[in-house]
C-alpha cells in the first residue's frame, strides 16, 4: 500500500511529466520527418507486398532518436534521483520506513515507464498517422512474422540500456551536473570512438537488419546481452550502491 503511494507520487512529479511531454513530442517530430523518403527494396513478390513497409519501419530508429532518448532518460532519472538529493527534498522521502534500494527500484520502474512510453508510443503514433489509410496491409505488416513483437522488444531493450546507465550515474555522481556529464560520456563515448559492436551502433545496425525476417531471431538473441543482461547488472550495482550511499 505504501509502495503504491510512492509510485503514484513519483508518477505525478511535475518536472518528469514535463520532460516526458517534451520527449514524446520531439520523438514524434523526428520519427515523422524520417518517414519522408521514397524507398524501394524489400520484396518484389506480389504476395508479400506488406514486406515493403518494413523498409520504412526498420529505418526509423536513427541517431536523432538516440539523442532524444539519451536526453529524456538522463534528465528523467537525474532529476528523480540526484536533483532530489541536491535540493534536500530526498531527506523526507528516504525518511520513510522503506529500504533505500526499494525506493531506488521504484524510481527506476517509474522512469522506465516514462521513457518507454515516450519512445515507443511516439513511434506507434507516427506509424498510425502514416499508414492507417491502408488498413489491410498495415495490419498484415505488423502481425506477419511477429513483427510487432520484435519492435516492442527492441524498443524495450534500448530504453532499458539507456535508462540503467542513467540510473547508475545519478546514483554514483556527487551532484546533478556531474551526473549529466558522466551520463553523456558513458552513453556517447562508444559512438564517438566508432565502436561498432557496442551500443548505440549495435542497436542501430541490429534494427536495420531486422527487416529481414529470416535473420531476425538471430539478431534478437545477439541483443540479449546488451539489452537485458548488462542493464540488469548495472541496475543491480546501482541498487547496492544506493543502499550504501547516504542521502545528503
Amino acid at each position, binding site marked *: 500500500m505504501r509502495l503504491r503511494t510512492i509510485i503514484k507520487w513519483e*508518477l505525478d512529479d511535475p518536472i518528469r*511529466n514535463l520532460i516526458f511531454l517534451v520527449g514524446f513530442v520531439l520523438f514524434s517530430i523526428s520519427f515523422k520527418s524520417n518517414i519522408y523518403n521514397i524507398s*524501394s527494396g524489400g520484396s518484389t513478390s506480389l504476395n508479400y507486398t506488406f514486406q515493403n513497409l518494413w523498409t520504412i519501419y526498420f529505418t526509423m530508429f536513427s541517431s536523432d532518436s538516440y539523442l532524444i532518448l539519451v536526453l529524456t532518460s538522463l534528465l528523467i532519472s537525474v532529476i528523480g534521483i540526484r536533483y532530489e538529493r541536491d535540493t534536500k527534498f530526498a531527506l523526507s522521502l528516504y525518511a520513510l520506513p522503506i529500504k533505500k534500494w526499494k525506493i531506488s527500484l521504484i524510481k527506476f520502474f517509474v522512469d522506465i515507464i516514462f521513457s518507454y512510453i515516450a519512445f515507443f508510443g511516439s513511434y506507434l503514433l507516427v506509424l498510425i*498517422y*502514416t*499508414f492507417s*489509410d*491502408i488498413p489491410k496491409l498495415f495490419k498484415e505488416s505488423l502481425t506477419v512474422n511477429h513483427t510487432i513483437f520484435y519492435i516492442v522488444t527492441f524498443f524495450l531493450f534500448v530504453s532499458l540500456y539507456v535508462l540503467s546507465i542513467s540510473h547508475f550515474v545519478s546514483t554514483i555522481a556527487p551532484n546533478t551536473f556531474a551526473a549529466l556529464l558522466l551520463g553523456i560520456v558513458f552513453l556517447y563515448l562508444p559512438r564517438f570512438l566508432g565502436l561498432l559492436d557496442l551500443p548505440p551502433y549495435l542497436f542501430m545496425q541490429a534494427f536495420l537488419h531486422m527487416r529481414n525476417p529470416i535473420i531476425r531471431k538471430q539478431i534478437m538473441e545477439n541483443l540479449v546481452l546488451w539489452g537485458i543482461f548488462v542493464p540488469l547488472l548495472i541496475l543491480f550495482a546501482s541498487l547496492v550502491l544506493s543502499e550504501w550511499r547516504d542521502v545528503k
Partner: protein
Amino acid sequence: MRVTKTLLLVFLISTLAILGVQHLNENKPLGISLMFFENGYAHFVAPSSMIVKMSCFSSNDEFFGINIMDPETGKKIRAIKGSGSAEEVFLLPHSGPYYISYEGVMPSCTLKVVKIYPSKKILELEYYIGTISALLLSLLIWREKNENNNC
C-alpha cells in the same frame, strides 16, 4: 492524476506537431528511378498520398506500356502508353507500397514528387484524436477546478 492529463496533452501536442511536419514536407523534393526486377515488377513505398510525375523512356522509339497497381485494393490505378518517351502526372491515393509492371520493351522510368498531401483518412484520424484529447483534457481540468471550489 497529473499523468492522465499529461498523456492527453501529449496526444494533443504531438498531433499538432505531426500536422506541422506534414505541412513543412509538402514540397519536399523526392525522387526515385525505378528498377524492374526479374519478375517484371518495380516497386516503391510512398510515405504519404501524393501527386507524382512519372517520366519513362525507351530506346529506338519502341512501344512500351506501364501499369501502376495498388496492392491494398488490387486495382490498377493508372496505365501509361508511349513510344520513345511518355510523361504523366497523377495522384497516389494513399501511403504505402505500389507496384509497376510493363508491357513491350522495358523502359527506364523515374518518379518525381510534385506535391505531398496527407490523405483524407489520415487527416480525419488526426483531427479526431486531437479533438477528443483536447475535449477530455478540458473536461478533466474543469472538473478539478470545480472540486477545488467546493472544498
